[in-house]
């Protein structure tokens, strides 16, 4: 008799977990499995056919373009990460420790989110008239006499791509870091001062170690977003730069689904490895 209610409880538990499980299975797990399966299919110029062959992967790993493009993607991710971290940490530090009043804190935080009120394509494209050959930036610099002729590298370059990435994704770094910083007991900072720590020592020995989980969460956001992006690179480089996302999108445009799927699988694995390495360093569990 004792077993019956226990069994009921198990059934109930499964039932309660069901809706989310179904959603995840249908919209996360199944598509990934599908992509993995398709990545082993074969393709000709005009058709694709089910098979189990490694042609796509062989071609992918055999091509020097792949390594170059993965290298470029990691470079974008690394530079964007460094810049968003520097800006995000500074902004979060200012909000959390310099602004004393909660009202002003919230107000400033909301101001940070204003760019998100429009689509990110619009935010991205609005850089183009600013950075272009005859754009505001070049004209201003010329009128100030800083430069004699327009800077060519402002637009359609790595510079503009990374600028757009930083603009788009810095907030993803600010939010988790700010959140972690707000949880730091202010008396710890006083204790550090009481123990003779200078402002910089407090930052390095107290604030930074305690902010690590937030930095890690922000890092995961930024790295995954940048590595999976293709539209920013296309618009901001004027289709002159490539990253893995563009590789995939080009394959899809040419209806080369098996090849696109194989690239996607490799990209997914790369991102997962990067995240796994990051999680080795910091335990973010207590933040979640």
């Amino acid at each position, binding site marked *: 008799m004792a077993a019956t209610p226990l069994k009921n409880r198990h059934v109930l538990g499964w039932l309660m977990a069901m809706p989310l499980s179904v959603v995840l299975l249908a919209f996360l797990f199944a598509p990934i499995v599908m992509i993995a399966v398709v990545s082993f299919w074969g393709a000709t110029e005009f058709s694709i056919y089910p098979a189990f062959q490694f042609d796509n992967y062989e071609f992918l790993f055999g091509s020097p373009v792949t390594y170059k493009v993965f290298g470029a993607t990691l470079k974008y991710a690394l530079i964007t990460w460094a810049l968003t971290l520097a800006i995000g940490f500074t902004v979060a530090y200012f909000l959390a420790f310099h602004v004393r009043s909660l009202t002003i804190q919230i107000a400033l935080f909301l101001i940070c989110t204003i760019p998100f009120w429009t689509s990110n394509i619009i935010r991205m494209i609005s850089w183009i008239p600013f950075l272009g050959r005859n754009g505001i930036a070049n004209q201003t610099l010329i009128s100030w006499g800083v430069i004699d002729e327009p800077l060519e590298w402002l637009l359609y370059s790595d510079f503009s791509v990374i600028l757009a990435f930083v603009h788009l994704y810095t907030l993803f770094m600010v939010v988790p870091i700010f959140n972690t910083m707000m949880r730091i007991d202010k008396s*710890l900072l*006083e204790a550090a001062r*009481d123990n003779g720590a200078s402002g910089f020592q407090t930052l390095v020995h107290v604030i930074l170690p305690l902010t690590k989980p937030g930095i890690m969460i922000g890092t995961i956001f930024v790295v995954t977003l940048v590595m999976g992006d293709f539209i920013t690179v296309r618009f901001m480089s004027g289709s002159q730069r490539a990253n893995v996302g563009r590789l995939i999108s080009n394959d899809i445009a040419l209806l080369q689904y098996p090849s696109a799927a194989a690239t996607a699988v490799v990209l997914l694995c790369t991102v997962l490895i990067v995240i796994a390495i990051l999680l080795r360093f910091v335990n973010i569990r207590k933040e979640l």
Partner: protein
Amino acid sequence: MRTGYDLELVHLTKRYGETVAVRDLNHVFAPGSYVCLLGPSGCGKSSTLRMIAGHEEVSDGSILLDGHDVAPLAPAQRGTAMMFQNYALFPHLSVRDNVAFSLRMKGVDKPTRHKRANELLALVDMTHLADRLPAQLSGGQQQRVALARALVTEPKVLLLDEPLSALDPFLRIRMRSELKKLQRELGITFIHVTHGQDEALALADEIVVMNDAVIEQAGPAREVWAQPRTEFVARFIGGHNVITLPQGKVTVRADAVQLADEGMAATVMAIEYQGASVAVSTTTEGGDEVLALLPEDQFFAAPKNPGDAVRLRWDEARLHRLTA
């Protein structure tokens, strides 16, 4: 003639905008004494402590330590150390590294600072837990670490901000005897902020009672308890009845009040059995609440019930006149 590291407050004032948190304090803390700043919350005792520590700016006046004005100095340069109310241990550092923190900030090399930290941990009997993180310690253990961390800077004055309030009552009593013992061994001044009069009486060589941003009364614990100067002190320190007589307000200790056949008429409001004694709360005809603390055998020889009319008597010599 004053000697040693005495601490003196001169016209010390703290304003927050329009409100005055601490008004024109003048006081000399004798070196090597255990001083309790006692008062209700919001009376300015914490602000005073934080100004001495250097975590709050002084609006006016000065803080003299050994004859030097320390008010403009950074907290670590004053020769004071503070123990925070919630201990403020660094959660990412081990107990040993917490204690060694200030030495690390000074650039002392690792073996030296660990050796010194171990000495302090031995002093507070925490050597066996030196490698733990603060989150793995109990409240009392965290407090000992906080104490060791404050003492590692070799302060001349240790400032304790309600150090026992986070502990359970049993531990509180044990920790307060340890604090007292430590103070006696080290021979430095402890300034301890509390709102508990029992804590102040148990610990302090000198009690400074604060109310409404000023010092109401300061003196040795026995003197403050036996001869409260004001009605506020008499009520706050406990154990006293404030009675309005024709000649003015007087206090009489609760244990000096007896129930008798004649004396002041009163009505019993409540009776509380406390073990060794019985607390009889009464209200006089004048409206004063008077508490009589009777020995248990005496009360049960002639028990009373709430609502009974009684007469209160006391020895005239035990009346104490309030000056304010």
